[in-house]
């Protein structure tokens, strides 16, 4: 019988079996975009569509953060006019989207990944270089 794990239980008790790293995809330049290729190590743990959907949503969120448009230009010009002192009082658009991303990853972990013995690490904790997926040992089969 498959045991569903809560995030806390997993972190405290389970041993780490492996870690998979989803690297950045630089084909469209220096924008933050992760490869959507499904890693083979996750084949028997999670559905390919679900995983690709998670990565695609992440990519869309980062694209939104780095979007060049009217609002970002306005923010930049306003900041320049105030000699960038406005950054001391105001949260930038990028920071707001990063909070959204953190919440999204938390949700994904709670609903989809933790029950399957997986854990997504927020890319910001790895310098926006990789999406780290920790695969925990499946103890439900052991005991």
């Amino acid at each position, binding site marked *: 019988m498959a045991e569903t794990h809560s995030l806390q239980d997993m972190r405290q008790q389970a041993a780490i079996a492996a870690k998979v790293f989803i690297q950045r995809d630089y084909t469209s*330049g220096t924008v933050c975009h992760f490869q959507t290729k499904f890693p083979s190590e996750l084949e028997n743990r999670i559905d390919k569509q679900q995983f690709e959907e998670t990565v695609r949503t992440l990519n869309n969120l980062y694209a939104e953060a780095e979007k060049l448009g009217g609002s970002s230009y306005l923010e930049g010009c306003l900041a320049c006019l105030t000699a960038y002192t406005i*950054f001391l009082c105001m949260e930038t658009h990028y920071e707001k989207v990063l909070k959204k991303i953190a919440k999204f990853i938390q949700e994904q972990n709670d609903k989809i990944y933790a029950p399957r013995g997986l854990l997504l690490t927020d890319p910001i904790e*790895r310098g*926006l270089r990789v999406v780290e997926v920790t695969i925990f040992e499946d103890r439900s089969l052991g005991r």
Partner: protein
Amino acid sequence: MKNCEYQQIDPQALSTPTPTPTQPPRPAVEEEKEEERARRKWEVFPGKNRFYCDGRFIVAQQSGVLPLTLGLILVTTVLFFVFDCPFLVKHLTVFIPAIGGVLFVFAVISLLHTSFTDPGILPRATPDEAADIEKQIDNSGSSTYRPPPRTKEVMINEQVVKLKYCFTCKIFRPPRTSHCSLCDNCVERFDHHCPWVGNCVGKRNYRFFYTFIVSLSFLTAFIFGCVATHLALRAQGGRGLMFALQENPARYPFTKTLFWSILGLSGFHTYLVASNLTTNEDIKGSWSGKSGAEDTANPYSYNNIITNCCSVLCGPMPPSLIDRRGFVPVEESSQTVATEIELPMLAAKNEINVEDNCLDFAVSCAG
């Protein structure tokens, strides 16, 4: 029943970690302290940077010329206010010191922002990441054409770009990233290391740097113009130019030199901003075809001067990736240090084993 193998328990091992004889311990790291208080990430930062105000401000290791830069700007402006302003306010307009003051404040604030902001430092790879990359490098290279080891080729906007592996940071450097040897960090969109501001100029602080040199150009041009006007008005006043020059300290040639060098630098960086290039790329000739390759164009340029300017100067402000003020996680603190040495991780494990064995022994004796 568990394995109740008797092990000699060294009472010393319970309080202090047993050192591994193979590697010398790093003097700055004291494992006892980690257990007592949570440390902030800037305290264990591996690069050669200095931090002030509990990690709020970051500068390069040698910030020696920054005080000189500040001093030069301050002295020039003070001399301007003391010697030229009274005369010009009387003969021209009261706005002269006001404009000078605004430009001065703008230049100094931009300078401080450039010096104390994280330029876009990439944190070093965690041990697991580094191991994964090593594995990938070993597995690849089975095709007939073998690229030189530790490089990776990617296609960016139909242009082949080589990504180099950084041996210090243990990552494949993203495009436009370069490793600064002075700061010992990989910096994103690395422009150059500026000794005048005492920091690297990269993705996060390029706009501050550009604002600084442009506002400084305006400030020196303004002072230069005011000084010239002052001398001209005094010369007109009857006694001639030579007497006027003698009366006033020789700020004229000094300001002139400063003005032309800073104007030149501003002009150069304006060209870089308009073509979405970095100083590093321009010097190396990465996209101008100097290396003899076929038609290479800058793949990052939007091919529109206005879009390039807007994206470089007014684009979204990226976050700092090094999280200076965050706390080092307790279970990972020994791992982050162990990037360099294995000592703390092994010592921690030994401690746990000793305690477990102690407990087992006690249980077996009692039962």
